[in-house]
């Protein structure tokens, strides 16, 4: 046996070398040196402030008109009684003056406040499989999913079932600008994906609002669900108790100081729980609707970062400290104190 052979036999148990097993993988070890920290903060500030300003200006350009009408549209003292009276005349006229020119398309939203579409009992009370196709597999599961608004009094299944559909918002708005009636385009207010995949073109309303209690709006029995866009919009539940949903679009431009008249059929009951209703007209930009929050946040964060960067620079100049000085280690400090 050769010498080298016996040597390799003698170290048969030697662990195999690899960078991984020896924990020696090349690693980058970023050190937060004062230079890097100051640089990073400055960079964040320099990037953020412009973004913030851009968002703010985009938001500022958006013209948004909000008209809360729930109080004014019910003059009766017994508001709940009025709203529940099906024979009462619910029509109500509101006038809005436009402060700035609005370029079409102008989005028309209805805004509800203190309405908990995200309540656990509410948000789950729907059956997606029933909405999707008339030939669903499991009627029992559908009934269970829609509890407590699954069947009429005699036990026949409601289509579309569930609390969400049952409580469909049913105020309507008719707009005229400067006394000239304006059409509201109610096409394509729902997501295309919902119309195509979530709501079936072969599913028609059955037994809807035929139960003991009538919730919200009714549906046209002749139209398939995929074309009932108001329902589709309503059924995209909101995550917050204050929310807006798209009612339609006004395609024409509206000039400054034009007067918009809205004739509202005030049907929907928000009075029993103290909710508010408003109609919102808004233009849109790249950041969506009017929202100053992001712009303010960016400017604030950017500003703080720049301030911090300057603070660090001052600190660095006034009281510099050598990097990696072992005298700062706690035990060395203690020892130094001990020797004094």
């Amino acid at each position, binding site marked *: 046996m050769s010498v080298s052979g016996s040597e390799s036999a003698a170290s048969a148990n*030697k662990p195999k070398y690899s960078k991984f097993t020896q924990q020696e993988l090349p690693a980058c070890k970023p050190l937060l040196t004062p230079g890097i920290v100051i640089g990073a903060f400055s960079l964040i500030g320099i990037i953020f402030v412009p973004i913030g300003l851009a968002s703010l200006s985009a938001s500022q350009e958006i013209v948004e008109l909000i008209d809360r009408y729930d109080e004014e549209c019910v003059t009766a003292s017994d508001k709940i009684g009025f709203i529940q009276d099906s024979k009462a005349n619910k029509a109500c006229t509101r006038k809005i003056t436009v402060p700035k020119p609005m370029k079409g398309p102008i989005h028309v939203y209805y805004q509800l406040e203190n309405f908990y579409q995200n309540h656990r009992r509410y948000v789950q009370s729907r059956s997606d499989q029933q909405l999707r196709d008339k030939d669903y597999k499991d009627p029992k599961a559908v009934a269970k999913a829609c509890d407590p608004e699954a069947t009429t009094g005699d036990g026949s299944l409601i289509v579309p079932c569930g609390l969400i559909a049952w409580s469909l918002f049913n105020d309507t708005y008719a707009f005229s600008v400067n006394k000239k009636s304006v059409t509201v385009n109610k096409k394509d207010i729902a997501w295309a994906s919902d119309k195509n995949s979530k709501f079936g073109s072969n599913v028609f309303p059955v037994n809807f609002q035929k139960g003991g209690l009538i919730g919200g709006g009714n549906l046209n029995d002749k139209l398939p669900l995929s074309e009932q866009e108001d329902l589709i919009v309503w059924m995209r539940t909101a995550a*917050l108790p204050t929310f807006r949903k798209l009612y339609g679009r006004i395609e024409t431009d509206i000039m400054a100081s034009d007067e918009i008249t809205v004739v509202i059929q005030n049907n929907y009951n928000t009075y029993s*729980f103290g909710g508010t209703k408003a109609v919102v007209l808004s233009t849109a930009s790249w950041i969506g609707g009017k929202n100053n929050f992001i712009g303010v946040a960016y400017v604030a964060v950017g500003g703080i970062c720049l301030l911090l960067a300057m603070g660090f620079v001052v600190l660095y100049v006034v009281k510099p400290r050598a990097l990696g000085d072992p005298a700062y280690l706690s035990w060395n400090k203690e020892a130094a104190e001990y020797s004094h």
Partner: protein
Amino acid sequence: MKRFVYINDESYQNDYCDNQISNTKYTLWNFLPKNLWEQFRRFMNQYFLLIACLQLWSLITPVNPASTWGPLIVIFAVSATKEAWDDYNRYISDKQANEKKVWIVKNGARKHIQAQDIRVGNIVWIRENEEVPCDLVLTGTSEPQGICHVETAALDGEIDLKTRVIPTTCIGLDSEQLHKIKGVIECPIPDKDIRRFDANIRLFPPFIDNDICPLTINNTLLQSCYLRNTEWACGVAVYTGNETKLGMSRGVPEPKLTAMDAMIDKLTGAIFLFQLAVVVVLGSAGNVWKDTEARKQWYVKYDDDEPWYQILVIPLRFELLCSIMIPISIKVSLDFVKSMYAKFIDWDEEIYDQETDTPAHAANTAISEDLGQVEYILTDKTGTLTENKMIFRRCCIAGTLYGNESGDALKDIELLNAVADNSPHVIKFLTVMALCNTVIPIKSPSGTISYKAQSQDEDALVNAASNLHVVLVSKNGNNAEIHFNRRVIQYEILDILEFTSDRKRMSIVISDSQSGKIFLLSKGADEAILPLAYCGQQIKTFVDAVDKYAQLGLRTLCLGWRELSLEEYLEWSRLFKEANSALVDREWKVAEVCQKLEHTLDILGISAIEDRLQDGVPETIEILRQSGINFWMLTGDKQSTAIQIALLCNLISSEPKGQLLYINGKTEDEVARSLERVLLTMRITSSEPKELAFVVDGWALEIILTRYKEAFTELAVLSKTAICCRVTPSQKAQLVKLLKSCDYRTLAIGDGGNDVRMIQQAHIGVGISGREGLQAARAADYSIGKFRFLKRLILVHGRYSYNRTAFLSQYSFYKSLLICFIQILFSFVSGIAGTSLFNSVSLMAYNVFYTSIPVLTTVLDKDLSEKTVTQNPEILLYCQAGRLLNPSTFAGWFGRSLYHAIVVFLITIHAYANEKSEMEELSMVALSGSIWLQAFVVTLEMSSFTFLQFLAIWGNFAAFYVINLCISTIPTAGMYTIMFRLCRQPSYWITMLVSITIMFF
């Protein structure tokens, strides 16, 4: 209780088990229930099961039950699979052992059968290099003297060959007769003591006399040993299957819990209480809101008359929402990183011992963090601090000290001359050195003689004697042959009075074959031999020599002899045989009889053996002491030697820098006074920068541990260093226990069988795979080749493990709390009804996937380089004090998660307010925010980045988008098209960016 084994008797039915070995924990049938039962004994698993069961109630579950059941089943399946795989491997190896073919005697003829069919009483034949299938009593071997050699490494880890002899009644039986013998063996019921077998055998006529013959462990072949250097051997099966000594000693060691594990458990408990508080508060708030507000919300349609349990529904919903506060993934993550720590130890090249070809091994994969928190190291001396490579250096024969000038007696001209001159004292001394031992000489074909010795001291003595021309050439059974100056001297070894740690000496009785004279040769510790000197012998020179040698750090042995008259010997021999065949208290009886012979010795001299310090021991101890670890040295050696070694290896400093305080005394009063004095000095000087250490010996320690435990505990707390000499294995364990009771993290390190108890008792046991066999290394949690590797084990592996686990465990809670706080915040805007903001898939994936994988790469994180740590060992103080994982750091993480949750939530609901507040979108924005945040938090918390870490963190980040984009293409999924819509919105990306920056303020 006794067992009677009838040899080779088919007609005698016994109901002892057959030789089927079973190491498996489960069978095919009981696997599922038993495994589940074991897993559910853990509190965390019970908790998760309860949550999972609650989720089956659809009224209260906020998410799909699958989000808990999925991970739960995966986690259970993973550990069950691991168990099953281990068990299957055990089954396979059992099966191999069980189906191995062995020869047994049946009806007078040899038969080839499977090992599992061996029954108690069968005669089993084994050939050279075969494994012994069950515990046998030897009845015959191929060697005419009736001996055979076995390797017992699998049993006790000792690699030297051991001689086994057949009982005297079986001597002279030829193999033909061995097929037919009948008889009975009376033996104890199975136990696990591999050093004792107190039994006897009686053969039936026509075989020889009807006498009872004693059996000892030397007459047995135990399961798992290998027959070596012997053509064949046969024996009677006495213990079979799982009742063998090996089978009985197999036990599941109690799992050790690290300080970190205990802390994590405590913190888990705290989080659980916090969770209950949240549930109670939010549950009641929810019920109040429901009755005051929700009933007015007509669209929610609450019934007016509800079943009674409705009051529980909202609290239970919150319980389920908050259940993720305790991360289900933490156990799996911890197990994974812990086994990686262990692997890194196994793989580490720098703690591989080239000399003995032993890599370090972490047998216990679960306690690496504890290495970083060690406060006390209790170390053995011989073989641990020293090499246990004994070299004969000096001797004192008949008042003359040899080897004083050169430090090597073998080169001392005077001694060589004395040998050449046949100086009778020197020759006697050398004869005792060569004969009084249990060394086996092995002659290689080339004619050179090598020695196999159990004790390194004996090895050194025999080798030294042979260098001085008194060569032990062979030992066949009872005959020993010595060559001296070309003369051959034959001796018959009559009896061996074995060494025990109580007696501290051994003797043999030999008779000179030529003259027929009988001698007693003894060797042992000075205090065990010198008092036995005959009246009138001047032993002062020997006492002085012992002192002198001890101060040089040498190990001394005292050698003596005595000529016996035939009558005296015969009389004693009868008693000795009687004692040896005793079934009860044999050890004690034998010791008593031995004492009857060992007296009025002629002290021949003192041998001094050097045991060098291992490489790097002083530096290692120095560095570890700098890092705040206290050392206690526990040794069986004598005080002066121990102190000398302690000085050499920086354990203590000499005056004036250090001071040694002695606790001694023979009586209780003396010891008490001494202890009081030492304690007083300690208290006074504890403020001075002086290194104090106390020294105590086994005798005083025994008194202290029984009577003055409290005072000693106080001393233990005050004293950073201690030397305990002359201590027994059980005292070592007691000292470990004492330190443990003071809440110190202890590490015991040793190399020999006498350290096993202390190693098992300590929080961390480290074994040095040394010359005394592997017993310590096997019992230990970590085994290393050399003491100096302890430095790297603690400072590098222990410290990294601690840091990594501290981050991983707290991060696991942080990320779970984060998502939970977001859910809680959301409940405030959703009518406190327990709506889940996130869908089931996202929740599940967040916990077990998105946030678990990146953080696992913390096993590669190195906050400081290995070099920096070893140069500044003080840094370990951080780990010892538990600075990185304690209630306040945890509170920091807790606060961080709350802050981050608030930031994510507020930004989300403000950026996605009004017309954008669609449930699915908002939920995905909040989730993305959390995911972005996780990537940055992990990045910020890690100190070094290898490509694997980059890959895990940012790959995981990309995977989040890929997975969610994929899910967004499924029309039936709730989040169909959501991710595509979001990715197209500039405001989504802007929102993400600002959430990240705000979080870092």
